[in-house]
C-alpha cells in the first residue's frame, strides 16, 4: 500500500513514475479513488427508450444496470440481488415488464431498486427481513445524471455535479448533439469491442499525442498513399483513404493545432475541415433547421478526439464514443459506440459507420500499430531500465484559459500532464472538486 506522499511523488510536473502503469496495487487504488469517485459514462438514453428497457454497463469494477424506471428517468443499479448476491440480469440489454425478478429464488424488485416481494413470506416472519429496508433492495449507485441523453453515474455521493465535472469537455457533447437538425442523437449501427493489453492511461495519453501519428502509423499512411497513386492518381482521394493517410501530415500541421486541456483531465484537439458532398448535404440539412450562421458555427467546431477522463473519447464529427473500461493493470476494453444524428441525411450516418469500420474495427489498418505500441509501453515499463516516463514536451509554456489550459504548440504534451494533475489530485486528495487543472 502506498501513502499519499508516495503517490504524489510519482507525478512530477514533467515526468511520471513507471509504476503508475504496471503496479497492480496502484490499479486497485485507481479503481477506488478515481473510478469510485468521478462521473463515468454508462450509456445513452436512446438505448432504453421504454420503461423497463435496460442495458448492462460498468463503472470501474462494478457491473451495473442502466434502466428506464416507472418515473421515465434513467436509473443505475448494481447488478446484484441482495438475497444471495446473484447477478440479476446477464450481460447485454433487454426489457422487463414492471419489475426485475432474480432467476435464482424469484425475489422481485421495482425498476428503480426497491423490493417488491419474495415467495412464501411466512418464512420471514419474526426475522429482520424487511422489504422496506434498503438492505433488501437492488442498490442504486450514489449519483446518476443525464446530459443531453448521455447518462453518467458516480459511485460517490460527494463531488462536482455532472455539468461542472464535464467543464470544457461539455462543449463536445453539445456539438455532437447540435450537429443534428433536431439537436438529438441516438445509438445505432452496432458496436465494436476491442482489447488492449495495456494500462488504460496509455490510451488516454495517446488520444492527443500528435507526435506519434506519422511515426506509429507509417505503414497505413504509406499503404493508403501508394494505393491511391497506383489506382486513382489525379482523382479526389476517397474518404477511407483520406482518414488513413491523414496521420502522415508533416510535423508543421500538428504543431498548429490548438490542443485544449480542461479541469478533471479532460480535453480536445481540432480536426481537419471537410468539403466532401456528404458534409455539404449535412450543412444544408442543418442550415434549414437552425439557420446558416448557426450551422456554420456548429459544423465549424471541428473537433477530433475529445477526452472525458474516466469515461472515454467522444468524436463529434464522426459521431462516436470510444468508451474506455479498465479491466486490469495491463488490460483495457474499449467499446466503440456509433450515433445517428436524428434528422440529418442518412449519408452522414453511413459515413460514421465507414469511419468506425476503417479506424475502430479490430481489423482496422490504423489501430493495430497503436495497440502494438501500447503493449510495448506496458512491457517496457516493467523493466528496471529507468523509472521515469517523460512528458517534458513544451512543459512550462501552457497558457491559461477559463477552466483549463491551451497548448502553445499542437505537439505539446500538455494533455498528458493535465491528465496526471487530475490523477494525482484524485489519488491523493479526493473530495469535491478535485482534479482541477493546476
Amino acid at each position, binding site marked *: 500500500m502506498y501513502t499519499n506522499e508516495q503517490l504524489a511523488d510519482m507525478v512530477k510536473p514533467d515526468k511520471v513514475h513507471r509504476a503508475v502503469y504496471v503496479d497492480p496495487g496502484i490499479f486497485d487504488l485507481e479503481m477506488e479513488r478515481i473510478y469510485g469517485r468521478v462521473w463515468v459514462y454508462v450509456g445513452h438514453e436512446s438505448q432504453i427508450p421504454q420503461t423497463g428497457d435496460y442495458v448492462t454497463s460498468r463503472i470501474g469494477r462494478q457491473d451495473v444496470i442502466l434502466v428506464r424506471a416507472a418515473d421515465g428517468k434513467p436509473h443505475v443499479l448494481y447488478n446484484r440481488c441482495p438475497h444471495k448476491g446473484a447477478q440479476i440480469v446477464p450481460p447485454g440489454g433487454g426489457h422487463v415488464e414492471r419489475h426485475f425478478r432474480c432467476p435464482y429464488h424469484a425475489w422481485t424488485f421495482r425498476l428503480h431498486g426497491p423490493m417488491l416481494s419474495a415467495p412464501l413470506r411466512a418464512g420471514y416472519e419474526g426475522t429482520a427481513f424487511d422489504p422496506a429496508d434498503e438492505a433488501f433492495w437492488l442498490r442504486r449507485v450514489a449519483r446518476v445524471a443525464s446530459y443531453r441523453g448521455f447518462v453518467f453515474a458516480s459511485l460517490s455521493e460527494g463531488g462536482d455535479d455532472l455539468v461542472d465535472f464535464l467543464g470544457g469537455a461539455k462543449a463536445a457533447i453539445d456539438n455532437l448533439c447540435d450537429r443534428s437538425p433536431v439537436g438529438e442523437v441516438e445509438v*445505432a*449501427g*452496432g*458496436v*465494436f*469491442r*476491442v*482489447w488492449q*493489453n495495456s494500462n488504460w492511461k496509455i490510451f488516454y495519453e495517446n488520444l492527443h499525442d500528435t507526435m506519434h501519428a506519422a511515426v*506509429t502509423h*507509417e*505503414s*497505413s499512411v*504509406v*499503404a*493508403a498513399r*501508394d*494505393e491511391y497513386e*497506383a*489506382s*486513382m492518381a489525379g482523382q479526389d482521394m*476517397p474518404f*477511407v*483513404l483520406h482518414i*488513413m493517410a491523414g496521420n502522415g501530415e508533416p510535423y508543421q500541421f500538428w504543431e498548429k493545432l490548438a490542443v485544449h486541456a480542461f479541469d478533471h483531465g479532460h480535453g480536445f484537439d481540432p480536426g481537419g475541415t471537410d468539403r466532401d458532398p456528404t458534409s455539404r448535404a449535412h450543412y444544408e440539412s442543418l442550415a434549414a433547421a437552425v439557420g446558416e450562421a448557426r450551422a456554420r458555427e456548429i459544423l465549424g467546431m471541428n473537433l477530433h478526439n475529445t477526452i472525458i477522463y474516466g469515461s472515454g473519447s467522444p468524436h463529434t464529427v464522426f459521431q462516436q464514443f470510444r468508451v474506455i473500461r479498465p479491466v486490469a493493470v495491463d488490460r483495457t*476494453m474499449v467499446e*466503440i459506440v*456509433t450515433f445517428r444524428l436524428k434528422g440529418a441525411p*442518412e449519408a452522414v*450516418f*453511413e459515413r460514421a*459507420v465507414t469511419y*468506425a*469500420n*476503417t479506424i475502430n*474495427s*479490430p*481489423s482496422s*489498418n490504423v*489501430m*493495430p*500499430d497503436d*495497440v*502494438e*505500441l501500447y503493449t510495448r509501453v506496458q512491457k517496457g515499463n516493467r523493466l528496471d531500465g529507468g523509472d521515469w516516463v517523460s512528458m517534458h514536451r513544451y512543459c512550462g509554456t501552457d497558457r491559461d484559459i477559463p477552466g483549463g489550459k491551451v497548448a502553445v504548440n499542437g505537439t505539446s504534451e500538455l494533455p498528458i500532464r493535465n491528465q496526471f494533475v487530475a490523477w494525482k489530485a484524485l489519488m491523493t486528495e479526493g473530495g469535491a472538486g478535485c482534479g482541477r487543472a493546476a
Partner: protein
Amino acid sequence: MNGIGAAEMDEAIRLKHRVEQFLFLEARLLDANAWDEWLRLFTPTGMYWVPRERGQQDARTQVSLFHEDALLRNVRARRLANHRNWSQQPPTHGTRTIGNVSVTDPGPGTIVVRSSFQMLEWRADNPRAFGGSYTHTLREDPAAAGSFRIELKRVDLVNCDAIHENLQVFL
C-alpha cells in the same frame, strides 16, 4: 437418387469438385500469407465481408469487422508488406481447414457455396482460434477454364460479437 439422373449427378459432383479445389487453393494462399495472389482471386467488383452480427444483412448502416472492396483489400495487403508495420513484427501465421462444402445455389451466372472453416492463428507466442462459415459467391473465371473468381466472400465468425484483439489478416 430420387428424381436425379446419372448425368445430373455427374454434373453436380464435377461442380462440387471444382468448387472444393478452388476453396482449397484459396486457403493455401491465405495460409502462405500470399496476399497478392489471393487478391487476384476476386472479380474487380468483388467484396470481402466479415459481419459483426449473426445474420447481419446490411453493411452500410451496421458496422462490420471487415467490409472491403478491391481498394481496401489492396491497402491491407500493402500494409502487411510494409517494413514499418510494427504490429506485424513478428507476423501473423495461420492455418485454415475447410469442410462441409456444399453448393447452395448452382447458378446460372453466379454460384453460391457454403463451407465451414476452422482457423488456428499464431502471432508473438499467442495462439487464437477462429471458426465459422464461409459463403462464397463465385463466377466462372474467364481467364482460367474450370476455375472461379470471387464476387463475394462472406465470413460468419462463430464469435463475431466477441471482444477481439487485433484482426490483421484476411480470414
